């Protein structure tokens, strides 16, 4: 778990960390691939919410370069299948997410990221 779809939706939320707090950097990650069912309607519906550059960059970091650098306008099946793989089938099970701005480390253990803040980081 911590699929790239989730990585694309999480930002650092420490107190006063409001700029450059996304995307979180991947650190020492262990990656696994697991098959998921393909649902083109779901993918089409989700496209508008994706930060494309962050997704392409994260995919590259875990060794997948199948996505085009620019978000395509034509959502054909071939593209949707690649998107499906990147968003849903790559799992980060161990490692950490690190804020590029404040350096907060969010550790991932057994697939669950610990997004808790320390007491002095709460607004």
């Amino acid at each position, binding site marked *: 778990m911590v699929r790239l779809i989730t990585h694309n939706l999480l930002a650092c*939320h420490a107190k006063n960390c409001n700029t450059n707090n996304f995307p979180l950097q991947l650190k020492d990650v262990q990656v696994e691939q697991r098959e998921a069912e393909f649902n083109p309607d779901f993918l089409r519906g989700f496209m508008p919410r994706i930060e494309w550059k962050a997704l392409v960059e994260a995919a590259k970091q875990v060794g997948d370069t199948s996505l085009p650098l620019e978000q395509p306008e034509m959502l054909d099946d071939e593209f949707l299948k690649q998107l499906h793989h990147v968003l*849903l089938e790559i799992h980060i099970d161990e490692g950490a997410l690190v804020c590029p701005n404040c350096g*907060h480390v969010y550790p991932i253990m057994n697939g*669950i*990221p*610990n997004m808790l*803040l*320390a007491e002095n980081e709460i607004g």
Partner: protein
Amino acid sequence: MLDQYLFIFAQAHEDFRIPELRSIAELHQFPIKIPEDIDVKRPFAVLGLEKEEHARILARRCILVKHVYEFYASATSYEELHEKNRALHARWDKYAADTSFKFFVAGFNQSIPQRRQKDVVESFSYMDFQGKIDMKNPELIMGCFEEYYDKQGTMRHKHEGDGNFREVFFGRLIEDGSARSLVQKFDVKKRAYYGNTSMEAEISLLMVNQTLASPGKVVYDPFIGTGSMAYTTAHFGAFVFGSDIDGRQMRGKENQPGIMRAAAQYGVAERILDLGTFDVTHHPWRCGGFLDAIITDPPYGVRAGAKRLGRRETPRSLRRPISAPSTPRPDDQPYIPPMKLYELSALATDLVLLARYLLRPGGRLVFFLPTVTDEYQEVDIQTMTCEGMELVANSLQDFGVWGRRLVTIRKTTSQDYPPPAFDTAAAPSDDVDGAHVPAHRHFRQKYFQKFRSPTEGDEEGSQRSLSEAIEQVAEDNNLP
């Protein structure tokens, strides 16, 4: 024109029956006509649908539907019933020649003696069905149901008052409800992972139907605990996100998180998109507008206390110095960060605002709200809604002195709203003159003050919660 169908409900959760039917009809985008004066306490209802196929869809998805019949007639006497049925002969003539059939006669709230069941069947002989009678696999099942008044608690002989029914219904079976078997499938006790906050299977299923879960939708539980609603949601094809302030609730004791073990048991692990440990009042979601539904059983200080990160607001003099951790802690350790209690009405208000931020237009928020039964007023729920969020349903699960309401709210706006500030102080205070104070305000204190000792003949529900309540007191005494 809509045709009439006779719905026979399971004898449970009366208040949930109609909202469930409406939700599933909405999910499949077909009209359903429910009489305005319907008495939801009765196990029979005659509803309008466009086609048989719609009745079948409802029978396959609604947890509370036991059978659906094509409605022929209802009456307060057999004389009247037969008169109406004779007039309908065009409907059943086509079965007369050679359709195999069986008649099914049953009483509700009272059983009908064998002897009279036979008489009832014979009284329909004018229909002159020539096909063979097949008790096992008939092509046609005709049902005749006598509904009696509930005489629970009164002493009477088993068949006393036989024939003095309130109303009798007659029709042709379309389909038996098949979704009820899911209640067994999701039985908490048979689950690979569960805890003392796990939600019972039947309610988890009813909640999911309120979310309109279906393949490809994204549903989020921000207080996911041991994940009870995640499994039922994923069962209907939706993807699930979950989070909890306490990682141990989601993980359990083994390496592989408990929620993932249970999800694998149900064959839906792949639909659990992700889990995360965080306080929902300090959440890391980058944006809103990406969820189709939020489904949750919020902590309300009885079963699992509502907590949030931050100092308790105790007088300065009472505070003990605690060394503030400056690095985040592992989420599987029994360390409990300093948390303050989260007042229930503030939590409910925040939850609605959070849902308005996170949901897509048309998305739904489905959650439980506990209330003190005799203090509850209709306006209590209204105090929680806000611009762009509209109440869809509100069903009471009654435990006697207290109950909990399953609230369904729809996001009607397509405008973007900012995330809530989770600024508890902004909630209207009790002291404001004339402001309505909902019955769920300070539910926790009321619960402990009023319901401390179990009353005689207490229902299972309130007793169960009472023992949890006592646990909670113990837990609270350990808080920093």
